[in-house]
């Protein structure tokens, strides 16, 4: 185990100064997520334009450094992405956290991958995996227009 891998500079930076931490006025999709174990909460807002592109994405919420950083990095990443690509990227990220150590999707460029890989240190901390994945599950829920809030006790990882 290695705390340095978990709390890398970039995580601490995003954790302290999260990007896109706000609501969007004209969002057309949103979802809430909740980790009952530690009280982390997140609310994801999305503005999908007519071309099925994510024109804007933001989040509100509170939580530990890992969950805030993960949401911050995620929102940066998805701004401008196509709707059709979201699922593949999310799955690739979840796989990276759970099983593999690499990202394999072609949709992301190397810079983007490097940034996401910062979150891979969490793999060694099973209780913290949920912190890292909460916002990602919530994003999926927003895309699917799920009525139920995401609850990390309920989803598989």
């Amino acid at each position, binding site marked *: 185990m290695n705390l340095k891998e978990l709390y890398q500079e970039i995580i601490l930076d995003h954790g302290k100064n999260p990007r896109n931490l706000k609501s969007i006025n004209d969002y057309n999709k949103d979802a809430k997520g*909740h980790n*009952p*174990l530690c009280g982390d909460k997140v609310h994801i807002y999305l503005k999908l334009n007519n071309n099925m592109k994510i024109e804007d994405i933001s989040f509100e919420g509170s939580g530990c450094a890992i969950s805030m950083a993960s949401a911050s990095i995620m929102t940066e990443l998805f701004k401008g992405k196509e709707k059709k690509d979201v699922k593949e990227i999310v799955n690739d990220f979840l796989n990276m956290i759970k099983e593999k150590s690499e990202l394999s999707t072609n949709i992301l460029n190397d810079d983007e991958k490097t940034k996401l890989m910062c979150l891979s240190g969490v793999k060694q901390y099973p*209780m913290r995996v949920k912190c890292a994945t909460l916002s990602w599950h919530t994003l999926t829920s927003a895309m699917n227009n799920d009525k139920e809030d995401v*609850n990390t*006790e*309920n989803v598989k990882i």
Partner: protein
Amino acid sequence: MNIDNIKKEFPIFNNKVHNNDLVYLDSANSSQKPKTVVDRIYDFYTKEFSNVGRSVHYLAVAATNLYENTRVSVQKYLNAKDKDEIVFTKGATEAINLVANTFGQKYLKEGDEVLITELEHHSNYVPWHYLRNSKGIKIEFAEINNDGEITLESIEKKITSKTKIIAITHISNVTGAILPIKEITKLAHSKNIPILVDGCQGAPHLKLDMQDLDCDFYAISCHKMYGPTGLGILYAKKKWLEDLPPYQGGGGMIKEVKKEGISYGDLPNKYEAGTMATAQVIAFNESIKFLEKIGIKNIVSHEKELMEYGLEILKKNNSVKIIGNPKNKGSVISFTIEGVHPHDIATILDEDGVAIRAGHHCCQILHEKLGLAATARASLGVYNVKSDFDQLNDSINKCKKIFDLK
């Protein structure tokens, strides 16, 4: 693992009772524990102890994983569809109370009928009786036939348009009758009636397949299944666990708590309020492993062979009257001796190290029907051997001698 010398896996048999070897024929009451189960408890408390699911430190993470591992093992052993269909309780009694209480709250009203049988253990009657008192429901009893069995027909006869749930035992803990659960379930479902099975005696002795049985609820006592005391399991179809209200309230089963109201957590947490029996759940994984190592097929055939041997011997003993004669009989032989009260039998047998049970075995309804205040009961576990029945018979003959019977 060879079932013929399985006894050596159970440390209790190294001890003497009144200077005799222990002949344990009281497993329907509670089974003995294999060493692996007891060791697991010891190791958990001395090397790994922590509470489950509430802290992020190392020990807590490890304990939480171990706890959930058992849930998955149980799911597989029962062939349940989803691990969230496995709820840990403090015993089968609590499991049945949980269903009666929550199902009763939501679905039962005055005049509704709950159908049970004359074979039921008090644990599968008293919880329904509460609803008779609080809600004015009715309890109907399917009747046994002369062999001490419950047939599909005896159930069918008692089903009316008001029957809202059927609650029946898998194996009678007195006559040993194995009920045709799959057929009864089919019948019940054809009339849209859910079914609860009291699996206390079924679970340790039969191959279990929840998806095949298709029952809605199945209650298990872990201490009768080579596991620790203070633990039971409720299997319930997911749709019911999602649909029914929560049972006990406390930590771990909630989502959000405010002064004005409360929302409940998802499955399986919703039904596991408060600190659970962590060590027991973790150790029960070893009980499942033990059963899997022997293989349920081997257990069934071993116990069948024993049963046939035991019945043969006891039937030859002219003073012994065996209670019930079910075609499908599992794991228990209840009997009386004309002229010797069961209580006296038990005392005299005990002197020889033979442990049986005497009384009404929490089945007063059945005993009243049979016109008996009490019976003696010999019940089996995997560790029994044929010579246990020889000893039982010898000790019965000693009773007869003391009471001057021929």
